[in-house]
C-alpha cells in the first residue's frame, strides 16, 4: 500500500552547493538548517567560554564591560533564535514527514525560502560584531528604554533587531508548513491518535510557534520604529507593554525549545526499553494542556515589575507541574518492565529526564512570586534556565542525534566516543550550572562583567569556568565522533535499533520521496513494533503447532537486536 501521491520532478537539477542550497527536499532543508544551527551553537559556545573566562575570578579584566554586554546578549540570542529553536524545527522538517509516512513536506518552496530568511536573519544579527559600536548589547530580550537609540546607539543593535525579525519570520513560516504537513499528509490509517510521540511534540510546538512568534515580529518591528524615534513605548507603561509583547513570545519559545527534545528522548526511551511508550493518550492530553498553559504564563517573567497580576500567572505557572508530572510518569512507566539497552542515545535520554528535573523543580520555586522576588536577576535564574535548556534540551538533542544519525547518514556514531561525550557533558554541565544556584542564593546578580571579592564566590566561579571548559571538550569529542563515523563508516542499515515508527521502514538515508516500498499498515503509534509483535505471535503459533503444543518461541525473540541487553 503506497501512500505517496505520485510526484513528478520539475525544474532543472543542479548538483553540488547550488543543488544543496536550493533543494526542496525536506530532508536536505532539515539537514541544512540543523548544520547551520550547529554552527551557531559553536559560535554561541565560544561566547560563553569568553564570558566564563571573564568571570573566573573576582575583578578579572579579560574583556571590557561593553564587550561583556555584547557577549551575553549575543550568546543568549544565538542560542535561542539561532540554535535551540531552529534545531527543534529542523528536526521537524527532517523527521515529521518520514514519521507520518508522507512523500514530502507541505509547501516545500515556502519551507526552503523560510530557511533562507531565518539564516539571513542569523547572519545579519552576527554582522553587528563587525560594526564600530559592536553587536547588540541589550540582552536577548532588548527591553525598552534600554534598547532605544538613545541608550543603545549604533547600527549593531539595529542589525540585531532586524536579524530577530527575519529569524522569527522564517521560523513562523516553517512552523506553519509543519502544521499543514501533520494535518494533511498522514499515511492511510494514521489517525491523530496513532501519530508517533515525537510528531505530537512537534505538533504542539508548531501550534505555539504560529500562535506566539507573530507577536515577537510585532514587538521587534515596534522596537525598530522606537529606535527610529517613533516613541512607541514611552514611560513606565510603555516599558511594561513591551515586556508583555516580548514575553508572550519569550515564554512559549522555552517550550518550543523543550517539547521536540522531550519527544526525541521519549522515542529513544521507548525503542531502547523495547516497549511501547507508556500512557500514550494521557501523554497527548498532557501535551495539549502543557502547551496551552505555557502560552498563559508569560508574565511570570515580570513579577517584580509591579505591572502584572501576579496571582494569575503564579496559578498557571504552578499548574504546569501537572502535565510535566504526567510526562515523567509516562517515562518511568515505559522503563518499568522494559528490556533496557543502554546505548549512548539512551544515556542522553535518561540524562535529559534526570537533569531537566532540576530545571523543572527550580522552575516551581521561581513560579512563586514571593520566592521570585528573592531570585529575580540572580544566578538562581541563570542556573534554572540552563538546567532546562542545556541540561535538558541539549541532552534531548544529543539523544536524538545518536538515535537518528544512522537514518540521515547511513552510518552509526561510535559508541565509545559517544559514551565519553556523554560522561564529559554530564560532568561539565553540572560543574558549570549547579554552583550557580548557590551563588545566586548568596546574592550574586546576573549580567555583571565583574564581581567583588566575597567568601566562596571566587572558588565557585572558577569551578564553573572549568566546567565550561569540560563542556567544550565534550563538544569536541562529539565533533570528532561525527568525523570518525563518517570517514570510517559502520553501515547502519534501515533499522539498526529496531525502531517503532515509519522512518525506520525506509532506507538510510531515505530516497528523495522517502518511501520506495509500500508502507506497513498503521494500526497504532508504533507500527513497526506492531509488525514485529504480529510476526512473533505467528512464529509462536507455528512453533506451538510444530511441537505438538509443547513448544513456544522465546519471548521477545523477533525483537532481539544485534546488541546485547544490559538488563
Amino acid at each position: 500500500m503506497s501512500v505517496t501521491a505520485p510526484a513528478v520532478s520539475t525544474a532543472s537539477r543542479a548538483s553540488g552547493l547550488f543543488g544543496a542550497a536550493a533543494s526542496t527536499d525536506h530532508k536536505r532543508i532539515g539537514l541544512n538548517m540543523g548544520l547551520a544551527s550547529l554552527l551557531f551553537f559553536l559560535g554561541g559556545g565560544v561566547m560563553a567560554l569568553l564570558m566564563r573566562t571573564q568571570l573566573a575570578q573576582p575583578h578579572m579584566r579579560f574583556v571590557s564591560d561593553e564587550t561583556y554586554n555584547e557577549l551575553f546578549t549575543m550568546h543568549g540570542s544565538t542560542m535561542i533564535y539561532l540554535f535551540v529553536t531552529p534545531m527543534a524545527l529542523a528536526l521537524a522538517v527532517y523527521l515529521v514527514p518520514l514519521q507520518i509516512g508522507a512523500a514530502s513536506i507541505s509547501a516545500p518552496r515556502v519551507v526552503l525560502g523560510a530557511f533562507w530568511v531565518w539564516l539571513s536573519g542569523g547572519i545579519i544579527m552576527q554582522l553587528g560584531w563587525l560594526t564600530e559600536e559592536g553587536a547588540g548589547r541589550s540582552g536577548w530580550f532588548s527591553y525598552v528604554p534600554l534598547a532605544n537609540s538613545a541608550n543603545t546607539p549604533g547600527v549593531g543593535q539595529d542589525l540585531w533587531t532586524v536579524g530577530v525579525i527575519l529569524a522569527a519570520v522564517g521560523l513562523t513560516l516553517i512552523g506553519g508548513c509543519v502544521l499543514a504537513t501533520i494535518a494533511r499528509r498522514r499515511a492511510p490509517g494514521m489517525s491523530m491518535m496513532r501519530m508517533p510521540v515525537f510528531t505530537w511534540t512537534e505538533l504542539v510546538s508548531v501550534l505555539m510557534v504560529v500562535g506566539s512568534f507573530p507577536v515577537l515580529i510585532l514587538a521587534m518591528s515596534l522596537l525598530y520604529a522606537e529606535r527610529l524615534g517613533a516613541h512607541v513605548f514611552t514611560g513606565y507603561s510603555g516599558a511594561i507593554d513591551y515586556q508583555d509583547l516580548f514575553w508572550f513570545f519569550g515564554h512559549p519559545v522555552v517550550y518550543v525549545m523543550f517539547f521536540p527534545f522531550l519527544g526525541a528522548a521519549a522515542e529513544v526511551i521507548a525503542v531502547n526499553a523495547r516497549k511501547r511508550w507508556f500512557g500514550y493518550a494521557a501523554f497527548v492530553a498532557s501535551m495539549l494542556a502543557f502547551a496551552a498553559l505555557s502560552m498563559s504564563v508569560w508574565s511570570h517573567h515580570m513579577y517584580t515589575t509591579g505591572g502584572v497580576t501576579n496571582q494569575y500567572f503564579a496559578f498557571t505557572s504552578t499548574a504546569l507541574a501537572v502535565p510535566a508530572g504526567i510526562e515523567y510518569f509516562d517515562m518511568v512507566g515505559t522503563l518499568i518492565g522494559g528490556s533496557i539497552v543502554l546505548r549512548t542515545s539512551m544515556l542522553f535520554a535518561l540524562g535529559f529526564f534526570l537533569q531537566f528535573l532540576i530545571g523543572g523543580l527550580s522552575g516551581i520555586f521561581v513560579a512563586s512570586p514571593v520566592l521570585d522576588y528573592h531570585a529575580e536577576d540572580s544566578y538562581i535564574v541563570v542556573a534554572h534556565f540552563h538546567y532546562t535548556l542545556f541540561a535538558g534540551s541539549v541532552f534531548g538533542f544529543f539523544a536524538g542525534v545518536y538515535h537518528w544519525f544512522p537514518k540521515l547518514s547511513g552510518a552509526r556514531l561510535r559508541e565509545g566516543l559517544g559514551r565519553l561525550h556523554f560522561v564529559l557533558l554530564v560532568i561539565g554541565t553540572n560543574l558549570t550550572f549547579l554552583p550557580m544556584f548557590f551563588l545566586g542564593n548568596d546574592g550574586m546578580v546576573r549580567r555583571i562583567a565583574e564581581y567583588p571579592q566575597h567568601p566562596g564566590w571566587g572558588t565557585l566561579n572558577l569551578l564553573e569556568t572549568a566546567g565550561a571548559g569540560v563542556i567544550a571538550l565534550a563538544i569536541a569529542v562529539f565533533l570528532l565522533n561525527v568525523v570518525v563515523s563518517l570517514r570510517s563508516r559502520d553501515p547502519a542499515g534501515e533499522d539498526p535499533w529496531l525502531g517503532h515508527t515509519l522512518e525506520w521502514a525506509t532506507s538510510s538515508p531515505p530516497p528523495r520521496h522517502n518511501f520506495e516500498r509500500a508502507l506497513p499498515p498503521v494500526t497504532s503509534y508504533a507500527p513497526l513494533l506492531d509488525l514485529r509483535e504480529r510476526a512473533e505471535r505467528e512464529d509462536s503459533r507455528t512453533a506451538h503447532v510444530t511441537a505438538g503444543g509443547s513448544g513456544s518461541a522465546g519471548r521477545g525473540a523477533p525483537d532481539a537486536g544485534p546488541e546485547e541487553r544490559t538488563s
Partner: protein
Amino acid sequence: MRGGAIPVLAWAGILTVLLAVNAVWTGDEIQIAEYGFAVLVIVLAGVLLIARHRAAIRRGPPEPRPARVEAVPDLSFAAVLAAIAVASILFGLAWAYFLVYFGAGLLLLSLGRLAVEEQAARASRERAEKRPAAEEPDAERGT
C-alpha cells in the same frame, strides 16, 4: 485529511478558556489583545484546514487517497532569491539604503523565476497525467 483540524481546534478551545480566565482575572488590555490574537490565529488555522478538506473535522484514520499527480520541484531558486531579497531589504533599512533597491530588484527577479517554475510544474503535471498508468510516475520521481 481526516482529523487534522481536531487537535488544532481542541487546543484553541483550551486557549480560549485560559484567555477568558486571563481577561477576568487581569483585565489587562495588551494581554487580552495579544492572547486573543494567538487564539484567533489558531482558530483560523483550524478553519482553513476544514475549508480545504471537510473531513479534517471528522475523527478516524485518513483513508487512502486517490492517486493524483503532484508536481514536486527538485530545486527552487525562486524561493532562495525571494528570501535573500526580503533579507536584503530589511538589512538595507538598517545598514545601507541601496540594499533596499537591490532587494526589491531581486524580489522581482524571484517572482519571474517563480512563474517559470510554476509553468514547468504545470507542464510536468500534464505530461504525467497523459501518460498511461503503468509508466508513471517513478521514473520521474526525483533524485
